[in-house]
């Protein structure tokens, strides 16, 4: 019975008797000593080690698994003693002659090839292989791939094709080719060492995982990974969408609001000017919105890529956190300036004018040329026009559409038409002033009253919830002709009756 140890030569494992190992070690030491003055010593030893591996491998079989003294001695006699094949004198002198040559001799650069890099793979290693091939950062390649997918849509099929076509870099030589490094012994060894390192790391991880988790937990771990990747992808997607939107709205300064002027639609900033009396306040709100948007977009992209690609750089976390912090500052600022604006809407005042008070029945015509938008409000109509804008700015006036009409029972024996103009502000005086400024006129033509669909107020008044309501009061037992459908007041439905276009209060 003899003691056996495990050794590896050039990355190949052998079981060897302890005594045999001593002999081999001794031989290699003698060899190294003999070669100490020779240029290319490492290479010669390397080559001899490779040969030893071959000879050892040839001497082993399924029934013989251990290298014994006999094999080592045979190998040494095949190779010969260092004294037999190394002539110190001649090698030494030649070395001097050729030292210049040697220093300049370079290893043959290997051609670079495209492989899939499974070590850095997120899915199948296509992007990481491409990154090595193109000498680009992995993250940049991945982001380009995602942009490619979203912009042109062929990122996914391209990925799948590359997945199928490209080989994985399995061997150390492949890995060197993938990295475009010359295939030298040094590089191969480095690569082998790195592989060993990777393997021991992953096996350690695996071992500790086995200890900690059972199968079900691992299953949920995988699910969790997929979910976090999904969330990451979604965040990244939002980030990209928002940044495109941000670009269009802020930098593009395009007409993005449904406010039409003679020069086209208003941009977001000019839209803001319709609300703020003091442009300075708008500037601050604008600034805080910009802070929120930029911080938010960076946060979304950073967190998204972090989750999606499982990045663990500390600076990534700091970036996310600082963006969150800056975003919160932006929100606080926005709240402050938003609240200044909100104060302008605290007081609402209305002015009521009696347009008509008559004993004679009349006809009401509403102008609603598009019935697609019909909002019932109380028992009237909010006539929203089916146009592609909400507000129209013309001659320094803002035109808004949509008049609420209420049909109610008259408190006396007369027909009435009342107009009510309503506006808000931070105090009574300003609210009343704005209500008065609302221009609205019901047109009379014989016994027919035409209620227009729009009203105007000066741009300088700013938008302060200006609106107009019309009350049509009908005496009990009398009728009225309306070119529109009437919704009866709540709780009084039984007292009303409509036949064709004539509505009667019973």
């Amino acid at each position, binding site marked *: 019975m003899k003691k056996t140890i495990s050794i590896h*030569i*050039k*990355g*190949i494992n052998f079981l060897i008797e302890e005594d045999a190992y001593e002999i081999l070690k001794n031989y290699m030491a003698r060899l190294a000593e003999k*070669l100490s003055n*020779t*240029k*290319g010593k490492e*290479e*010669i030893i390397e*080559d*001899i080690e*490779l*040969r030893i*591996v*071959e000879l050892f*491998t040839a001497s082993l079989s399924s029934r013989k698994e251990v290298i014994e003294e006999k094999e080592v001695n045979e190998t040494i*006699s*095949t*190779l*010969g*003693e*260092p004294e*037999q*094949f*190394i002539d110190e004198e001649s*090698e030494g002198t*030649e070395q001097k002659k*050729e030292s210049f*040559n*040697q220093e300049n*001799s370079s290893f*043959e650069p*290997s051609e670079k090839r495209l492989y899939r890099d499974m070590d850095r793979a997120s899915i199948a290693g296509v992007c990481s292989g491409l990154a090595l091939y193109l000498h680009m950062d992995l993250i940049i390649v991945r982001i380009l791939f995602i942009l490619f997918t979203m912009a042109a849509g062929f990122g996914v099929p391209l990925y799948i094709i590359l997945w199928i076509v490209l080989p994985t870099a399995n*061997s*150390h*030589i*492949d890995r*060197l080719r993938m990295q475009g490094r010359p*295939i*030298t012994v040094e590089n*191969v060894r480095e690569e082998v060492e790195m592989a060993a390192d990777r393997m021991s790391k992953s096996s350690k991880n695996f071992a500790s995982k086995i200890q900690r988790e059972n199968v079900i937990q691992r299953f949920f771990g995988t699910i969790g990974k997929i979910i976090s990747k999904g969330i990451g992808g979604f965040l990244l997607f939002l980030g990209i969408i928002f940044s495109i939107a941000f670009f269009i709205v802020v930098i593009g300064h395009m007409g993005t609001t449904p406010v039409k002027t003679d020069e086209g639609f208003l941009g977001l900033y000019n839209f803001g000017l319709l609300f703020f009396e003091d442009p300075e306040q708008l500037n601050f709100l604008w600034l805080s919105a910009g802070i929120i948007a930029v911080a938010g977009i960076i946060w979304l992209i950073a967190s998204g890529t972090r989750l999606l690609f499982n990045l663990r750089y500390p600076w990534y976390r700091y970036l996310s956190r600082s963006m969150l912090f800056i975003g919160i500052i932006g929100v606080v600022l926005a709240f402050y300036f938003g609240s200044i604006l909100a104060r302008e809407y605290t007081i609402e005042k209305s002015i009521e004018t009696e347009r008509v008070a008559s004993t004679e029945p009349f006809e009401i015509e509403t102008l609603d040329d598009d019935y697609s938008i019909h909002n019932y409000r109380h028992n009237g109509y909010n006539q929203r026009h089916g146009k592609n804008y909400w507000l129209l700015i013309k001659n320094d006036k803002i035109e808004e559409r949509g008049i609420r009409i209420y049909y109610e029972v008259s408190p006396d024996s007369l027909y009435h038409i009342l107009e009510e103009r309503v506006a808000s502000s931070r105090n009574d005086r300003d609210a009343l002033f704005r209500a008065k400024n609302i221009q609205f006129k019901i047109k009379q033509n014989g016994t027919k009253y035409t209620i227009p669909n729009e009203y105007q107020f000066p741009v300088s008044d700013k938008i302060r919830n200006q609106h107009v309501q019309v009350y049509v009061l009908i005496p009990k037992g009398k009728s009225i002709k309306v070119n529109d459908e009437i919704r009866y007041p709540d709780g009084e439905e039984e007292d009303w009756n409509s036949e064709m276009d004539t509505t009667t209060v019973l």
Partner: protein
Amino acid sequence: MNAENTQAQMRKGILEFCILSILKGKEAYPSEILESLKSAKLIVVEGTLYPLLTRLKNMELLSYRWEESPSGPPRKYYSLTNDGIEFHTELTQTWTELSSAVNLLSK
């Protein structure tokens, strides 16, 4: 003893030429070169080959590339460089001259 030494010297000088001859036209890894040399009984101990290969490589007469082997560690495949091909042609000429001279004299 004296004869042995001379034999060794002669063999060694010719060995370089033979390695170049083996590698002319095809690339080979050391074990293949060894096989050829052994079958020609030109080599006694295998170790002799390696310093020669390294030297020829350093003289830029040879170059090599790595290739993964189906079993075991990667292999170094050696081949002649352009300089090596030229050098081999020169040596062949010298050899032809020498061998005819030796044949003529040793008759």
